[in-house]
């Protein structure tokens, strides 16, 4: 799975789950927090999706905006985690 595959998959999930089908021009590098796309439940949902879709485990200390606060960041994080497997 390439990074762009992961981005496509994450983008689809974010748009369907948090934006209810309206992409509002969401760019992969945009902050999900600043755009008000993700709330406290959303973070849990996002992790749940990443773990099941990409077969990785997100450790507690990894649940930080630096890893997850944009589709780009989340994709890069997934790539790093998969490389460690």
């Amino acid at each position: 799975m390439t990074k762009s595959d992961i981005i496509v998959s994450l983008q689809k999930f974010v748009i369907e789950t948090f934006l209810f089908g309206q992409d509002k021009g969401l760019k992969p590098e945009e902050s999900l927090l600043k755009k008000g796309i993700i709330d406290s439940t959303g973070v849990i949902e996002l992790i749940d999706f990443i773990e099941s879709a990409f077969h990785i485990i997100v450790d507690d200390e990894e649940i930080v905006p630096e890893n997850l606060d944009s589709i780009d960041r989340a994709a890069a994080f997934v790539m790093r985690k998969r490389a460690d497997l």
Partner: protein
Amino acid sequence: MCGIAGLLGYGTNRPNYDSLLRMIVVQKHRGPDGHGVFLDGPVGLGHARLSIIDPEGGHQPMHLPETGLAITFNGEIFNYIELREELLAKGHKFVTRSDTEVILHLYQEYGPTCVDQMNGQWAFAIWDSRRQSLFLSRDRAGIRPLYYTIQSGFFGFASEAKALLSLPFISRKIDSHALAETFVFWHPLPPRSIFEGISVLPPGHNLAVGLDRPKPEIRPYWQIRFEKKNGDPDDEHYFMELKSLIADATRLMLRADVPVGAYLSGGLDSSVTTALIRKEEHAALKTFSVTFADPRFDESEYQREVAAYLGTDHAAVNCSGGDIARVFPNVVWHAEQPIVRTAPAPLFLLSRLVRDSGLKVVLTGEGADEVLGGYDIFKETKIRRFCSRYPESNWRPLLLKRLYPYMENIQKQSISYLKAFFQISQQAILNPLFSHIPRWELGANNLLFLSEEVMAELEGWDPLAKMKSLLPEEFESWDWFSRAQYLEFTFLMPGYILSAQGDRMALAHGVESRFPFLDHRVIEFGARLPLRLRMNGLVEKYALKRAARGLIPESVIKRTKQPYRAPDAASFTGPSVIEPEYLADVLSEERLKAQRLFNPKAVVLLLQKARQGRVLGVRDNMAFVGVLSSQLLAEQFLGASRHITN
């Protein structure tokens, strides 16, 4: 409690009996004990009566021919006995024992300033036939509702908007701005109502309109002000004064010619008011509460404890998600505004229990959280300020987890996400609306559900700028706590708590609620209470807790405050939930398209998410309940299309 209505015809327009009767009949739930209509040339007044004081003599509309005055009045003037004595001393002659007649004489004596002397909860209109003018007034806190409109050559007013909408010449349309404001603030900002062209008279305001001045003149006669007093007395003095004020407010509010009961939630506020009733009256006292099948919302253990401690005759209505879903369309009909939470529904069931028990008046603890500093948002703001002073700290934000032990998603968050969600930064703290920004932004994110048509009407709309335009000049000079209190007291309380959740749910079954903590003397006391006595450390309503010592069980004083909540989307759908029959229809693509309020694709995905039983956060739940209630409202009030104009 009652329902009022009236019409003033301009030019050659004259109200007729049938129109007024129609306005009253649709509000009959507010006053099932009788009705009356008064017609005098260009004016007509109507009244649906719930008789509580002077059942024999208090018929309305009341007309005193010798004064040229007539009134239709919803509410209670609790100090009417004292006012009556003063008016008698001035030579006024009374034909009834009612508080209604006292208002008329008071108005005759003092004119519009008469309301300054009144202690109570009211919405009334006085027709002055000599001046050919109407004078309308609404109580200080906004306990009783009052809507008005000018359309088709008439000025019309009523307790509930549905009375105005019952008239064929009143247009019916959902106000796009009010809908959007509801998603952000939980209610339309005054004077908007959810219906375009129909306004609310804000709390603490009077309105004058006449044949020679057809444009209503609206003036405030009272507003809450947070002023520091010099010569701060010692703390004990404040506790004594508070206890004495609440006791006196309770004493006045027990004035009724019918038995009075009480709501008992198991929390501090209603326990205090119930204890004060028991001190005042020795007759058996009936108390009522809601219990929940779901233990996350249930407080029955504390309710039973307080009821046993105070020796009340206690009854409870158990409420499940299914119950909420079943009554929800009725709840929306009575609330007559979109709601983003289901919390009014259990109170709808509770007022039915009261009525079935033979009572029509209850005292409740409502208002204490706003007036004396009880809400979690005050604590949250204090912690956010504390964190924002040193944003790098990873220890301070842990306090936010302590604040919301019942919110699993908050408990699971990392420190950096907590800081982001609660907007911890030195910059954020400079915003005078700091306390409420996270809440409002959370709601604003749900605007994505609005249809393109509604969004087009909102072009240039800025909810925060609108909110700021409604704030008094001195707002920014107040301390952070007072600012947060002002926002709760002035907007959310009358716009949602006292209306959709209060007046409408109680009067859906002809039950009048009375609020000792909203006696204006208690409100004014709260506004001058030193900060340390509103919240001490993180102990909310500190002064009330000290004043309550000896009145109620210590366990209730010391217990962690549990916000009143009810299951939201999970009441309607989920893998193991039997959906109410109307849900799939009301949220179907076809019906969504017919109302043109929401984006059908987005709503279908939201419904799908809820149906699958995926975890819904606060925001999703608010969207679900907000969309469903708006759809129900539009269908109930506007018919098949939201643009129907008769």
